[in-house]
């Protein structure tokens, strides 16, 4: 059973064909990688899935529901969470409040309940707080809960983004270059974390530049080049595909 299925997805920016008839199936409970050279259209695919931009053509079906045309916050509520390639935290708020942002879509109290501070609202706040603390513990940032987000190291900021995504209770987690700017040790820890997240039943879709990370963690890999899918399969298969080698290294011109 596939959780997310993409058919015939196409997106143009002016004359540039950013994504060209891409098809993808992400199986429930899998860790899938989307790779490709710079400008291959990976992030665009993510933006199309999460509703940040709209495709010109094609279907994105998540758990039987068509996502095309839905606003981002609705898509998050359906159970897709994402992190950003360029870190997008709420820099001047505390680490804890950053995570609470993710709890937002699983809460109901509006302005009226907040002003009256009803028992329901208080209970909900308490539960959200507990969930946020738990998520921080999970990624190992519990001690930094009261710090401002901007004071965290680069690697920890990435972890914070993951914590914020996790508290939205996603079924599919999309990670956009999570290892960007991380050192070797941090990357290894990240791999452990990604596996731990998957073991909780969350399907993972990963965009990555760092081939070694993708090869180590992903069970299934899709390779994009110039917006089109050029190869698909296990790490072994993709690694030896001549088309992939050509895309990454180029060919000898005789």
């Amino acid at each position, binding site marked *: 059973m596939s959780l997310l299925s993409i058919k015939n997805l196409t997106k143009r920016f002016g004359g540039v064909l950013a994504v060209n008839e891409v098809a993808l199936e992400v199986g429930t409970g899998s860790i899938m990688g989307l790779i490709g050279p710079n400008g291959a259209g990976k992030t665009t695919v993510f933006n199309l899935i999460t509703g940040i931009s709209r495709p010109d053509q094609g279907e994105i079906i998540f758990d039987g529901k068509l996502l095309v045309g839905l606003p981002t916050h609705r898509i998050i509520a359906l159970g897709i969470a994402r992190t950003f390639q360029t870190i997008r935290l709420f820099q001047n708020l505390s680490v804890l409040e950053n995570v609470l942002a993710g709890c937002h879509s699983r*809460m109901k109290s509006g302005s009226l309940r907040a002003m009256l501070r009803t028992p329901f609202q208080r209970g909900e706040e308490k539960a959200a707080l507990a969930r946020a603390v738990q998520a921080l*513990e999970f990624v190992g940032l519990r001690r930094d809960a009261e710090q401002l987000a901007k004071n965290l190291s680069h690697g920890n900021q990435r972890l914070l983004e993951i914590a914020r995504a996790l508290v939205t209770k996603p079924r599919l987690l999309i990670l956009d270059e999570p290892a960007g700017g991380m050192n070797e040790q941090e990357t290894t820890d990240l791999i452990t974390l990604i596996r731990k997240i998957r073991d909780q039943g969350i399907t993972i879709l990963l965009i990555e530049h760092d081939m070694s990370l993708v090869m180590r963690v992903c069970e299934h890999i899709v390779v994009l080049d110039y917006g089109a899918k050029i190869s698909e399969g296990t790490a072994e298969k993709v690694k030896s595909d001549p088309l992939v080698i050509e895309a990454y290294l180029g060919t000898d011109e005789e």
Partner: protein
Amino acid sequence: MITYGVVTALLAMSPLFLNKYWVDVLNNVGLYAILGLSLNIIVGHAGLFNLGHAAFYAVGAYTAAIFNTRFNIPVLWLLPLCACSAGLFAAIVMRPIIHLRGDYLCIVTIGLGEIVRIALINDVFGITGGANGIFGIDRPSIFGIAIRRPHEFFYLIWGFVAVAVFLFYRLENSRFGRALNYLREDEVAAEGSGINVAHYKLACFVIGAAWAGMVGNVFASKMTIISPESFSFWESVLIFTLILLGGSASIPGVILGALLIVGLPEVFRGIANARMLIFGGAMIAMMIFRTEGILPPRPRKYTLSDDSSGESRA
């Protein structure tokens, strides 16, 4: 905490030793404090520049004036109606322009404020009384006690401030208040975390406008006469600057701002001509030395349960 207690006690007793004139100054401070708090939700928390807040204030004041003079409904009873009319007005006019960012939104709100003022001068629907405004608005009365003198108004207005502070404090320490902060910090990340950004932008305008509308009601009954010139662009600027001066997104900051911006000019009546000069100088100094305002907001406090049960599911 103790400081706030002393200030509140001092304020509550001030009518006992101040004359009419100074109590009336404090009444104006109170009105601007609530206006400041209502705009603070929009400017301070959501980070949306609004230089047309006087428009919402005017809608509330005129709603009170029209319904009171034509249908003889007691003014205080009209409070909910004023809140609704101003809120509804905000919802209708802001809906199409809410997606504008920063300066663009700011410019449109300036336009909005001017349109409302000019519409009032031109006597729209023949009910606003044109440039003369509306006079003969009743004084408010609570349980049959008519409120007339500044000393009586003092307790009405500052009671209103107390209620506003109480409710706004709760509002900003909630899911709603946090959502506004998230969209102020980074709209894309907020939307990406599952927050309906467009909804919250509109909601903060509606809430801010509703409160400004209620202040309009109290203002109308305090003056008994209102005219378009009370709702000029200058009013919007005043409310905006008192937030920036006092500390945006900070309740004590806004109240201090109101005290400084509305109260100080009265203290320095003697040098009234140099007022704008001092005012401008103070703003420049602020911009250089203390950009977050005199009393910047404190970070929210959360009580964290300290069970380090470790590897649990997020």
